[in-house]
């Protein structure tokens, strides 16, 4: 039972099971965050005055430690994955909303004027011009959100083993098996780096129109 990937029984999962659980707990909130932040960001673009307060609120939310969120949310969702995922989704909003807003705003004014002049309505213009051009910025935001979400899930361990791979940390401590902690940290780190790489790949596939690196500047 002391192989690097053998886990104590109280974790209730195999190593791969925890990896799957971890990814689910980390990625679902980012997805939810993306779905929510698209319209929110669009509102911020449309009504410029909304953006500063939204930024302010999200910055403060971002500063609130995840554990505090977990504890308060236990009341509403119990010691469950939901409790872990809700704050993660909130955090991803903090990263994604500004990323999308900046991305959409970075569309050159000539391009927008051209679209308007060609008779694009606002919805079409958003979907066919602004959003595609904002893809690199959105993915840049997604990268940060995803990686930090993957890293933050581990804190869920503190609220009754809801931290997926993070749960190994508790056992590492109580049973004084440091290998478990090393395993946990490295696995989470590797997942983060892999997810980041996957998103970079998605970006490359989605944006054949971007100048290749080195061609710019």
């Amino acid at each position, binding site marked *: 039972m002391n192989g690097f990937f053998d886990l104590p029984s109280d974790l209730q999962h195999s190593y791969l099971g925890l990896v799957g659980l971890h990814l689910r707990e980390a990625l679902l909130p980012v997805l939810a965050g993306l779905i929510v932040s698209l319209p929110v960001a669009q509102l911020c673009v449309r009504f410029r005055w909304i953006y500063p307060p939204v930024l302010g609120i999200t*910055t*403060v939310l*971002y*500063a*609130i*430690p995840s*554990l*505090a*969120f*977990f*504890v*308060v949310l236990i*009341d509403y969702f119990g010691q469950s994955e939901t409790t872990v995922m809700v704050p993660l989704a909130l955090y991803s909003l903090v990263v994604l909303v500004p990323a999308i807003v900046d991305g959409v705003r970075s569309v050159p004014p000539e391009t927008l004027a051209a679209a308007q002049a060609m008779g694009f309505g606002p919805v079409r213009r958003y979907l066919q011009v602004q959003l595609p051009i904002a893809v690199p910025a959105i993915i840049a935001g997604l*990268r*940060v959100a995803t*990686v*930090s979400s*993957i*890293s*933050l*899930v*581990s*804190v869920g*361990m*503190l*609220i009754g083993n809801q*931290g997926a791979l*993070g749960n190994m*940390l508790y056992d*590492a*401590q109580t049973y*004084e098996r*440091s290998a478990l*902690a*090393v395993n*946990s*940290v490295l696995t*989470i*780190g*590797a*997942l*983060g*780096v892999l997810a*980041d790489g996957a998103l970079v790949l998605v970006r490359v596939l989605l944006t054949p129109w971007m100048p290749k690196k080195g061609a710019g500047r």
Partner: protein
Amino acid sequence: MNVLDFARAFFTDSAHWHGYDGIPTRFAEHVGYSLEALVIAAVIGLPVGLVTGHYGRGGNTLALIATAGRALPSFGLLVLMVIWLGLGTLPVMIPLVVLAVPPILVTTYEAVRSVDPSPVDAARGMGMPEARVLFQVELPVALPLIYSGLRTAAIQIVSTATIAAYVGLGGIGRYIIDGLYQKDYEKVVGGATLVAGLALVTLAVFWAVSRLTVSPGVRRSG
């Protein structure tokens, strides 16, 4: 009871305002950890970011380091460090620094990189030594972005420093961890409010510092 009630209850309880577990003590402890971590991270991140940005090399390596730094779970590192190093401030500083270096490093690099090349060119053309080009031409213009990197790092540190409480240290995190185990929502909400407040203070400090040190010429045109 809603969140606001908890917060009010927490802050109006006079027992929370003195002693080793009083708000002033915990707040000071928290500021102490955060400052220490920020200073260490800045000492590592700023010079590397400035130099790589100035020479425009190593951007990919930095991005990789930054991703790795962000990917390593602070909480996991903390537990690992406690297992390896035992109790104390060092095991807390390591994850906080790992957390804070990437934003400082990457934004500093980007900030220097993205300085308009023509004044830099002009500076070289008038015979400015490289060090002066970096400190007198690039740095003043890059300053706002560099501050934003430091600010992000600071906010993350302030928020994450709460985990110090998990390994028996003080700081505002104490209220949150204690609240969790004691099922005392007043403490949790009070602690969270304090952290958010400290974050706002941090924002204000950065705003003030940037007002004082960023040239009006850069502020208005950037």
